[in-house]
């Protein structure tokens, strides 16, 4: 039986377990004078039976599916004649692939050695019996689990508490996934980063002012010797982020203020979703907009003004990134401004302040910590933004503060170093992981600070 059919079957069994559990607990309650004399509602006894029926069965199913392949592979490959025995893992996977392609008909049985064709039919047989066994086992476990749980239904058992405890543990596990993700991120960059620092001293990475990772990817390819100072990347990242913030903060903040303080509900209802649409546009789209529309426009404009602007000017990427971040800033500011208690607004208005005076002198200062926190979050988003800069920013690591020049960013370098060459041993590709680590650490720091600021601010009013 296919797993795809097994799952509905388990569901059916679970439903049956539930129904039987329900019936049994109700039946137990009758002689006692109604379900109120049970420790828990029939529903909970039933849910427990269902849980015992479903969860172990699913667990076994998952394990079976996880190990089935390996076991069958060993069995099939092991039974091949000696001359076909693979001498390496790669060969083994090839042979197995060949066998399964023959079994599935993708390869004609005529073109392969007869031993392979035999193995293919053995594979089919094994797979079939494995699936039969799996189905039997899973069904047995489901029935057994359900039956035991059903037997153990007794009026004095607090099924609700047990059910709720299990559920709460599941909830906790879900929350814990966040930690696993972080661990996964650290895990996926830390080893390469350490190896990178084995090749390039950490001080050079952190304080070097020149970035040109053109180390040879092959021994006989000669490039530049390779310089791995991340300062120019970082400065480039900051330059673009700064331009983005210069666009996004005033525009976002003022829109938020206007929408929350002045606009009619109707206008707000129209404009807010429109602004949010800016946040919904995929970054690839922004990237092409930046590279193909804004950048030429800016270099044209600069030329008209007698300035020299690069085609990948930081300005173009920064402007477009700023546009992307506007809704982010505005919705965060909106939240924060709305969190300032109405009483402060009333207090100021009652003294005869105009709306803008109230805004500028009372609400804004009060909301400032929260807004700062929001802006920090926006900065971390700007720093981590990838597609816009991949398409619109340059690759040359210039250490400059001139927005008309091309700069490169950390994310651009990660993509360039990783897409196209995924060998994990040259300093050059390892550098991508060191940069990833750097990015993670920087955004982590920004976020922690931002969260701290925002939380402090929230405490002030909650």
């Amino acid at each position: 039986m296919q797993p795809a059919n097994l799952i509905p079957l388990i569901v059916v069994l679970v439903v049956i377990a539930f129904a039987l559990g329900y019936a049994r607990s109700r039946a137990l309650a009758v002689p006692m004078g109604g379900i109120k004399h049970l420790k828990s509602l029939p529903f909970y006894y039933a849910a427990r039976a269902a849980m015992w029926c479903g969860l172990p069965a699913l667990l076994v199913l998952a394990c079976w599916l996880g190990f089935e392949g390996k076991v069958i592979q060993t069995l099939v490959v092991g039974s091949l004649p000696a001359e076909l025995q693979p001498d390496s893992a790669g060969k083994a996977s090839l042979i197995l692939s060949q066998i399964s392609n023959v079994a599935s008909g993708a390869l004609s049985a005529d073109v392969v050695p007869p031993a392979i064709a035999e193995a293919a039919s053995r594979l089919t047989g094994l797979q079939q019996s494995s699936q039969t066994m799996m189905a039997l086992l899973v069904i047995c476990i489901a029935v057994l689990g359900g039956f035991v749980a059903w037997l153990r239904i007794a009026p004095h058992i607090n099924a609700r508490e047990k059910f709720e405890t299990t559920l709460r543990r599941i909830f906790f596990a879900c929350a814990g996934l966040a930690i696993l993700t972080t661990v996964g991120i650290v895990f996926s960059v830390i080893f390469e980063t350490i190896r990178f620092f084995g090749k390039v001293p950490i001080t050079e990475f952190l304080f070097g002012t020149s970035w040109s990772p053109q180390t040879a990817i092959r021994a006989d390819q000669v490039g530049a010797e390779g310089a791995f100072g991340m300062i120019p990347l970082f400065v480039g990242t900051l330059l673009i982020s700064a331009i983005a913030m210069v666009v996004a903060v005033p525009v976002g903040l003022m829109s938020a203020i206007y929408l929350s303080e002045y606009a009619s509900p109707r206008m707000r209802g129209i404009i807010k979703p429109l602004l949010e649409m800016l946040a919904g546009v995929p970054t690839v789209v922004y990237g092409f907009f930046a590279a193909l529309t804004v950048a030429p426009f800016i270099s044209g404009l600069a030329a008209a003004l007698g300035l020299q602007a690069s085609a990948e000017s930081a300005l173009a990427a920064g402007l477009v990134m700023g546009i992307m971040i506007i809704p982010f800033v505005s919705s965060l500011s909106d939240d924060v401004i709305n969190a300032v208690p109405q009483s402060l607004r009333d207090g100021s208005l009652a003294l005869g302040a105009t709306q803008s005076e109230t805004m500028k002198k009372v609400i804004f200062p009060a909301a400032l910590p929260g807004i700062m926190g929001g802006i920090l979050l926006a900065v971390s988003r700007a720093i981590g933004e990838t597609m816009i800069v991949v398409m619109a920013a340059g690759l040359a690591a210039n250490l400059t503060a001139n927005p008309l020049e091309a700069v490169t960013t950390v994310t651009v370098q990660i993509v360039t170093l990783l897409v196209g060459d995924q060998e994990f041993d040259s300093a050059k590709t390892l550098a991508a992981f060191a940069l990833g680590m750097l990015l993670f650490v920087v955004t982590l720091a920004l976020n922690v600070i931002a969260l701290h600021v925002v939380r402090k601010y929230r405490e002030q009013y909650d």
Partner: protein
Amino acid sequence: MSTLNTSISTEQTQREAPELAPAAVQDKPEETAIEYGQTVGTPFADDAKFRLRDVEVYYGESQAIKGVSLDIARNEVIAFIGPSGCGKSTFLRCLNRMNDSIDICRVKGSLELDGQDLYDPRRDVVELRARVGMVFQKPNPFPKSIYDNVAYGPRIHGLANRKSELDDIVEDSLRKAGLWNEVKDRLDAPATGMSGGQQQRLCIARTIAVSPEVVLMDEPCSALDPIATAKVEELIAELSESYTIIIVTHSMQQAARVSHRTAYFHLGNLVEVNATDKVFTAPEHKLTESYITGRFG
């Protein structure tokens, strides 16, 4: 309102009142009926600061104030009392147009301050509010220093030309609010660090710093403990020499302690206005009496 009279009494023995069909609520005996727009007592004054006639306030469809006419005299302290939801705050907030910020709120009728229409479209609310200050139920100091809180009003209105003038205004206001001695050494401390009572007095100081002519107070003591309440009441008594004060309170005792006249509101109607001692000793209207004697509320 017959239910009130029949089913409830101050004696706790009479707890087994018969259950009344809801229909019975409808037939009101004449004595407790309120005639729309009619107020017993002395609602009018000669030297009126505020002259309010047939004021009606609507929140969307529902009417919160039902044809209230009232004069408020210069330098008097008038207290608005009445059960919860009867429209005291709503009426009070009409007087400096704080209701403007509520979109669905509409005000009808004639409201005049010193003979000028309050709701004249050409009228400037900023100037109006500088003249008619307001103190709120919950102390709401700005999250700034004590000094800046008091200086805020004078600053925005440009009342001081020099730093020293501003200092004088701040000191003067804090003195009047009876707060100067407590805070003179920590004017730069954040106002949010003060106790509730001090905060409320600071809000009063902040209000009088712009030298208003009228001060509206909406349950200014309801968030305060007894000691702080006493201080604020004391302050009101003092301020009444120079300002017209309109105070909403849910505490009849407080009304009795601080006000010259008391106005009793009931479900949006102004039922009775009279000298405070008259209201508390010999109310004219049956509803007022029921309220005063604790039949409800």
